[in-house]
Structure formats: C-alpha cells, structure tokens
C-alpha cells in the first residue's frame, strides 16, 4: 500500500479515538459497533442442541452442566462465522442492573469459549437484561428459565 494511504488511515484512527475520548486501547478492540451486526440479516444455523445456558439469581457463573453443553457446541462454533451470545435475566431487580448482569452472563460464556480456542473476534455479545423473557409469569419456574444465555450461530 502507498505510504500516503497508511498515513490517512492512521489519521482516521486518531480522529476516531479522539471523538470517543477513550484512552484505553484494550477497550476499543472489542467493541461491537452497530455496523458490525449485519450478520443478523442472515438466518441462524440450526445445530440440534439446546441453545441455552442457565444461571442462578444475581449470579453469572457457569456450572458443570453448562460447561458440558458448551463443549458439545465447540465443533459447530469452529465452523460458524459468527457466534452470538445473548444474555438474559429474570424480572426481579432493576432493569438497568439486569442489563449489566445479562452482559456478565454472556461474557462468562464467551470467556469459556475463548479458553477452548475460539477466536474472540467471531463472538458477539449482547445483553437484553430482563426485556425478553421466555416466560412471562412471576414464579420460580419461569424465573429459572429466563435467567439464560442464548447461543446462536451464523
């Protein structure tokens, strides 16, 4: 590439990071911009496995059962272009805190996948907090079902 081109590219990057006023370069690496969500236009890949991992109230840690399920997923994930991890919570507690908690849950799954050799680049993490419950009733059963991370492959 022409040196001028590289220079312009570098300048653009500079302007970009200035606008965000973020000094932490690690943080910038893994952001998912709105433009990066185009894969959503395509259909998700069906793999015939349970696509949900469940959690305890106000917790984001994976148990042995969850890890086993994720192990089964690995070969499919390796083939897929994008893995989308959607974190969810039950309706208890506040909405914005749950949004953050859902993200924690999805990240827990992502970290596990990275440890197992999946490239962080193709993992997309999003949290819906308590906004998209599977069950709408207010009891232990529904809550347990709603506290989940959904895995979808594209």
């Amino acid at each position, binding site marked *: 590439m022409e040196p001028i081109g590289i220079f312009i590219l570098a300048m653009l990057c500079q302007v970009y990071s200035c*606008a*965000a006023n973020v000094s932490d370069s690690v943080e910038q690496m*893994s952001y998912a911009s709105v433009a990066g969500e185009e894969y959503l236009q395509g259909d998700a890949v069906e793999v015939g496995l349970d696509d949900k991992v469940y959690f305890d109230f106000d917790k984001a840690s994976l148990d042995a059962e969850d890890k086993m399920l994720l192990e089964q997923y690995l070969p499919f994930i390796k083939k897929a272009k994008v893995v989308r991890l959607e974190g969810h919570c039950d309706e*208890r507690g*506040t*909405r914005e805190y749950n949004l953050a*908690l859902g993200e924690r849950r999805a990240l827990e799954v992502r970290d596990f996948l990275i440890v197992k050799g999946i490239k962080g680049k193709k993992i997309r993490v999003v949290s819906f907090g308590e906004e998209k419950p599977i069950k709408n009733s*207010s009891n232990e059963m529904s809550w347990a079902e709603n506290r989940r991370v959904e895995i979808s492959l594209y």
Partner: protein
Amino acid sequence: MKRFFLILILIISNNIFSILEIEIIKGSDNLSKIAFVPFAVNEGLELSQGENLAKLIESNMLLFGEFENLDKAEMLAFPSLEEDFFYRDWKIQGVDFSVIGKINSVNILGNLNISYTLFNINRRIKVLEGEIIGSENNIDGIAKIISNRIYEKITGLKGIFDTKLAYVINSDSDTYQMCISDIDGKNERILFTSKSPIMSPDWSPDRKKIAYVSFENGIAEIFIQDLKTGERDSIQALGMTNSAPVWSPNGKSLALVVSFSGNPDIFLYSIASKSLSRLTNHYAIDTEPSWSPDSKKIIFTSDRSGSPQLYEINTSSKRQKRLTRDGTYNARGRYFPDGKSIFFVHGNNGNFQIATKKLSSRFIQTLTSTSLDESPTISPNGNVIIYATKKGSKGYLGGITLNGKSRFSLPVKNGSVREPAWSPLVNK
C-alpha cells in the same frame, strides 16, 4: 409590711407562669374534604360547561388520592358568588374547603373569562380568588391551571397537574412503544414503535427531549428524541452496551453507562462536544446513575461489595461514598428534589419494593407492599412517587404519596406498562 405581702403574693402566683406544654406529633389520618361546586355560567353558555369544569378540577385534585370530595348530590347549595356563600352549609357536611366559580363568555370566538374562589370552611376565610381567560377548546388546560393554584394554596406544594409522564408499553403483539401522556393518562402520544425492547426513558430538564435506550439495531443504543419534531439522534458511545442515560440538571450533558468489553462504568457525555469522560472505573458493575439536584453528585448502583448497593460520587473530586448497607439488594437510586433523601428499589426476602432513606440516617423505610416494584419516579414537588409493578403477567403503574396516606394505580393501558418517568415542571 405591705410590700412584703405583695412580694409573697407574687411568689405564689409565680406558679401560674409555668405553662403546661403538650406536644402534638401525630396528625390525623383523615383527608381534607373539598366541595367542588358546579361553576355558574352566563347567558349564551351551556350549564353543562360549568358542571364539566368543576368536574375536571375535581378529578385533577383527586388524582393522587390526597383529598376527599363532597358528592354533588349531597350539596345543600350551589353558590357561585361570594355573597351567596354560607359557611354553615358546608360545615355541617364536614367539608374543609369549597371551590366556587363562574364562567363568563367574552366573545363569540369562544373566549371565556373564568373566576374562581376557594374557601377554608373551618377558619371561615376566603383563601384564594382568581381569574383566568382562556379558550373554550382548552378547558382541560384551564382546569389544570386552576387545580394547580388550589393545590398550592391548600398544600403549600407546587401544583403538578400539567406535568407529563413518559413510559414504555410492551403490547401483547410483542411490540415496544415509547409513549408520553398527561399525568392523568390523557393525551397519550406514541413517540417510537419498535420490534425490539425500549428502555430507560428520561426527560430533558426543558421537557423538550427524551433520552432512551433502544435495541433496534441489535445492541443497546442510546437515542435522544426531540418531542416537537420527532427527530431521533443516536449517541455513538461506541460501547458494546450503552445504557441508563440521565440528563444533568442543566441539560448540557448526560450521565450514562458504557460497557466497552463487558465492564459497565459510569461516563459523562457532553451533548455539545459529543465527548465521553469517565467517572467510575471498577471491575464490578457500575450502573443506574442519577444526578443530585445541585448536580454536584451522582448516585449509582454497584455490585462491588458482592451485591448491588447504592453509592454516590462527587463529579468534580471523584470521591465515592457508599450509601446503603442494609439488605442484599439496593438499586436504581434517585435523589428527592431537596437532595436530602433518596428513593430506590430495595430487595427484601425475595420481594422488591420501593424504599426511601434520608442521607443523614441509616434507616431504610419501605413504601410499597407489592413484590415486584421497580423504576420509581418522583413528582417535581417531591410529594408523589409513581412506580412500575406487576399483576399476573401484566405490568401497570402504581403510586403513593410520601405521607403514606394514599396509594393509587394509574389507568390500565392496552399492554404491559413499565419504566415511568415523571417530567419536570414546565418553566424550570
């Protein structure tokens, strides 16, 4: 000798000077009773117009359950002028205040001149007298102005009947709507409809814009929508998750939450320069910011202690302070308009309820008694809290006055209502 007697008498009578003092701390649980007498009308107007205006004022005043009314059928007289008004007619009905008035038509264009008077029956005095000119078509607005003045006179608090409420409706067909309406639920307007969730509405201090979170593009993204033009602007905060926007009291910046790589922290976003500056930096979840009325501090939720608790941070010195210690769940704090107390969601034995706490004391006072209460919002006069709660699988809005005397629920909507946000007063 005579003098000595005099002194002796004085000393004895001294006893009389020690006056008994009796403390009164508890007040009555009764509500003040108000009679809203149908307004009289002059020639050329319908009688029902006068009746309608009194009804509108009445329903405003009764909105938060703070007063009782005297039924029209029980009224002994229908005076419209001070000289026809007799206190005893109302005293025997146990009425505390009476409102009378008259509508005069000014011209054929439908302009009205409305006079109104408020009497304190117990004290036998006229406490308020006023006149207002307005259009026939805006009788709702006129009623709100009169209600505000009456309310201010009786309670000493700012009238809030012309404030608005923003909220999110999740209708049955899985669509999400960002709505605003008058505080009584009338004049609902849908600002935005989406197939994806909408969250966290917050009014700009000038009441012209609303900031909220929308998932329309697959991730949590903050938008600012202009109420007049309907224009929507996305804040390019660049994070993986952008959430919980709240306007600063001067309207120049937003406090919001950005999670770049899964670590949500509080940031300040300047609207003019579109720049972010970091406020908190902790590996725990920091979210749900809200400004103190003097804009010197921001309250937020953090789980750095292992469970969600409330903290406050000084925006200039960045000094942080933990505010709640009792219980395992205290979140989404907001300051009272006087800045001396906070209200928040308090988790207690699996129930989530609205609670208050004075900043100077450690005690938490629970206000509500249902189990899934959230998103409390306070009236600009600091007297009423509206919050979201759930009955069956449907969300609705409940309310409570801070003196604890009244609980109410807002009219049921078509769909699940959540995340109420009370607008500021008009001319702030």
